[in-house]
């Protein structure tokens, strides 16, 4: 059973499943954005609406009154993304010569809005996992390797990288049609030096694959291998140096303090960590079974997976400082001590949270899907606060 929304397209009423309505609204919003600055925008949108209405009518019959979301998706795929013929690279070639007068207004307007709309998409071509880094690299116009290293770094540092990656994997749409792919790169022509270098590099590697001259190919491969070897040995050397430093530190440090007070602190921290983890597990379990956490009914607007991520995040926020305190109490010696460890842990958490907020901010401002989710999250947060207040008042 699904909720149904009634809409009117071009003067006719249609009943749509709610998810179908979302998809349709998204499509039309996108189309309107694409046609920004086009003098015929209203008319083209009306034409498109009419075409969609015709197709909706075709799937309905005397015993079928609701358009379901699968049908809307098929229809939208049939209609295809709206492409503005007055924009893009062939503007000068095609339209410029025929009517300089009619084009003037449109092109100056589109110049006013800046470069063609760049959008965040997952790009499957050449992707390692889900195309998130690939899409983000295209969006931010930087080399994809840098982003991959950054994500890997985040995963190892605070585990936030993984969380972030999964979030983006779910939220960011895949670039399927050529228009979406073009939007992922922000228009047809390489607009910045970074993009130009990226494309040139891609062409370079492509060219290497079909190298005719055997001798040169071998030479190139040899050089590539030796570079890789050099890089690897450098890496190993650095790793060894770091390990040596660590072990020096460990053996050089004073033996860990002992005593009743210290033992109690350690036990308390351990119990705290275990308790927080258990609470988190219990919360996730009750979320699944009762749909509520600790008796507080959660608002319906936010999906369950989102709540699970939030819960795990909160749990981590609580346990990480305790864990680091425990670790430093055991191994750190007197150099930094418990307070120092706590400070480091807090600083780490703060940096992690700041990065998280930064990423969410970037996504919210440039990814329509995320923007929508956050928008809804604000209203459901209000609802949650209201429900908590109601529960409190009843007591």
């Amino acid at each position, binding site marked *: 059973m699904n909720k149904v929304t009634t809409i009117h397209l071009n003067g006719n009423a249609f009943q749509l499943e709610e998810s179908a309505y979302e998809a349709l609204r998204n499509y039309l919003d996108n189309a309107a954005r694409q046609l920004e600055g086009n003098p015929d925008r209203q*008319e083209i949108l009306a034409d498109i609406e009419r*075409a969609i209405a015709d197709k909706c009518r075709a799937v309905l019959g005397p015993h079928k009154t609701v358009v379901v979301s699968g049908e809307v998706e098929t229809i939208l795929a049939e209609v*295809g993304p709206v492409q503005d013929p007055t924009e893009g690279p062939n503007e000068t070639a095609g339209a410029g010569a025929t009517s300089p007068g009619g084009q003037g207004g449109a092109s100056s307007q589109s110049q006013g809005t800046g470069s063609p709309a760049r959008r965040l998409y997952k790009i499957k071509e050449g992707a390692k996992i889900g195309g998130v880094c690939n899409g983000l690299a295209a969006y931010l116009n930087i080399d994809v390797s840098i982003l991959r290293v950054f994500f890997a770094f985040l995963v190892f540092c605070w585990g936030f990288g993984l969380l972030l990656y999964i979030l983006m994997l779910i939220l960011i749409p895949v670039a399927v049609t050529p228009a979406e792919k073009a939007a992922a790169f922000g228009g047809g022509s390489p607009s910045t030096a970074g993009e130009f270098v990226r494309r040139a590099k891609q062409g370079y590697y492509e060219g290497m694959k079909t190298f005719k001259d055997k001798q040169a190919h071998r030479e190139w491969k040899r050089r590539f291998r030796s570079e890789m070897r050099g890089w690897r040995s450098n890496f190993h050397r650095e790793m060894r140096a770091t390990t040596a430093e660590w072990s020096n530190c460990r053996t050089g440090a004073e033996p860990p303090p002992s005593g009743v007070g210290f033992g109690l602190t350690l036990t308390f921290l351990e119990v705290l960590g275990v308790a927080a983890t258990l609470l988190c597990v219990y919360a996730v379990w009750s979320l699944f079974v009762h749909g509520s956490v600790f008796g507080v009914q959660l608002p319906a607007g936010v999906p369950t997976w989102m709540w699970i991520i939030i819960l795990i995040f909160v749990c981590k926020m609580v346990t990480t400082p305790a864990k680091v305190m425990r670790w430093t109490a055991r191994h750190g010696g007197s150099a930094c001590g418990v307070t120092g460890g706590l400070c480091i842990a807090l600083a780490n958490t703060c940096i992690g949270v700041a990065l998280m907020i930064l990423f969410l901010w970037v996504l919210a401002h440039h990814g329509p899907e995320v923007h929508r989710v956050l928008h809804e999250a604000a209203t459901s947060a209000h609802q949650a606060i209201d429900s908590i207040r109601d529960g409190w008042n009843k007591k």
Partner: protein
Amino acid sequence: MSINEKFTAIRKGLLEFLVLKIVSADKVYVADILKALSETEFSTQEGTLYPLLSKMRREELVDYEWKESEAGPPRKYYELTAKGREQLRETSEYWQKIVGTVKNLGD
């Protein structure tokens, strides 16, 4: 890069010419144009065609009139204007020149 990808820009540029040709033959509405193109390399969609037709109308190459259809609401039927016919003639000539060049070069 496949041949298909290499010619993306060229196909896009030629679409206006082909629409002029289709509309010149008969009064048509968008579904007719889509159908005529669907079996060719130039197969396209409403999302591309409507903006193109609006642009062509603004350039006074085509015009449309509303006509009742037997099933459903009225439709826009497009036809060429005098300027559109002139443009079609010029484009056809130019196209012949291009085809000639491609054929003769390198032989």
